[in-house]
């Protein structure tokens, strides 16, 4: 599949079929995440794969931004202690967030290429998530990605035109582009 087809085809899915996600596909998503870039090569991420029905239900119930009954969720956490040790405060406070976001994007694009749908959720209760998944001190939940086979695919939302966001050489000097 062409990379642009994947990037432009991915949507945030909020309705899923009941079908389970095969374990080998889950492993591919995790492998894709593992190969994301990271500042200072910290690789601060840890992944909690949630497929147990009862635990998934609890995760859904403490996540107002979790829509649809997806059969799988991957919580991307950051190891703040390791990030601080290698990357200092910049690593701990900023890079971990960017790194986890890049891992999340790899998961989403790979999922789309495999015929799966995803939705990244940040609207979860941080404290409740740590309690339910028994997450240790120093490990912070960053992004929850829900995964399943799409039952409904939304239309693409409007994008701000490139000409409104791109400058040439200096801020404020427009780079005139042919609109894609």
């Amino acid at each position, binding site marked *: 599949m062409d990379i642009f087809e994947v990037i432009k085809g991915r949507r*945030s899915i*909020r309705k899923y079929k009941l079908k389970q996600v095969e374990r080998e596909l889950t492993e591919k998503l995790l492998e894709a995440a593992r190969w994301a870039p990271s500042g200072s090569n910290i690789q601060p991420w840890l992944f909690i794969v949630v497929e147990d029905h009862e635990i998934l*239900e609890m995760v859904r*119930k*403490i*996540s*107002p931004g979790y829509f649809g*009954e997806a059969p799988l969720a991957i919580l991307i956490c950051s190891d703040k202690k390791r990030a601080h040790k290698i990357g200092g405060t910049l690593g701990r406070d900023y890079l971990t967030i960017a790194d986890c976001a890049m891992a999340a994007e790899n998961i989403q694009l790979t999922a789309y290429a495999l015929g799966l749908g995803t939705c990244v959720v940040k*609207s*979860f*209760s941080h404290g*409740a998530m740590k309690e339910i998944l028994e997450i240790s001190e120093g490990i912070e939940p960053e992004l929850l990605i829900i995964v399943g086979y799409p039952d409904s695919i*939304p239309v693409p*939302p*409007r994008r701000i035109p490139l000409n409104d966001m791109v400058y040439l050489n200096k801020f404020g000097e427009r780079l005139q582009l042919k609109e894609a």
Partner: protein
Amino acid sequence: MTDTKDTGNEYLFELALFLATSGRNCIDEPPLYGPFRLLDALSRLTDFPKHAPSLSEDPFLNEVKTFVDEKKFLVTTDAEAFKQAADELVKRFAKELKRRYAQNKKEK
């Protein structure tokens, strides 16, 4: 439908949990997410009769749920259309309120 939503009390707990987590998250989230969570809570509230057999289904609220579920995600794509949908929702409630008052008068 999940096993744990089988009783009204469990569904009430789930709704309360949704409100608690939403209430906390709204402190940090985009301002429009407050209205979004409230409308989503309304949608979830209208499901109550499915879990509490002593309550009867309300056709108006069922229609409201359909409307809200169709429109609520506009919050992420078109804030103006989301606001118009919220305005439309309030109008529908006002009309229904008038209709119920008129019906009550007739029945007295």
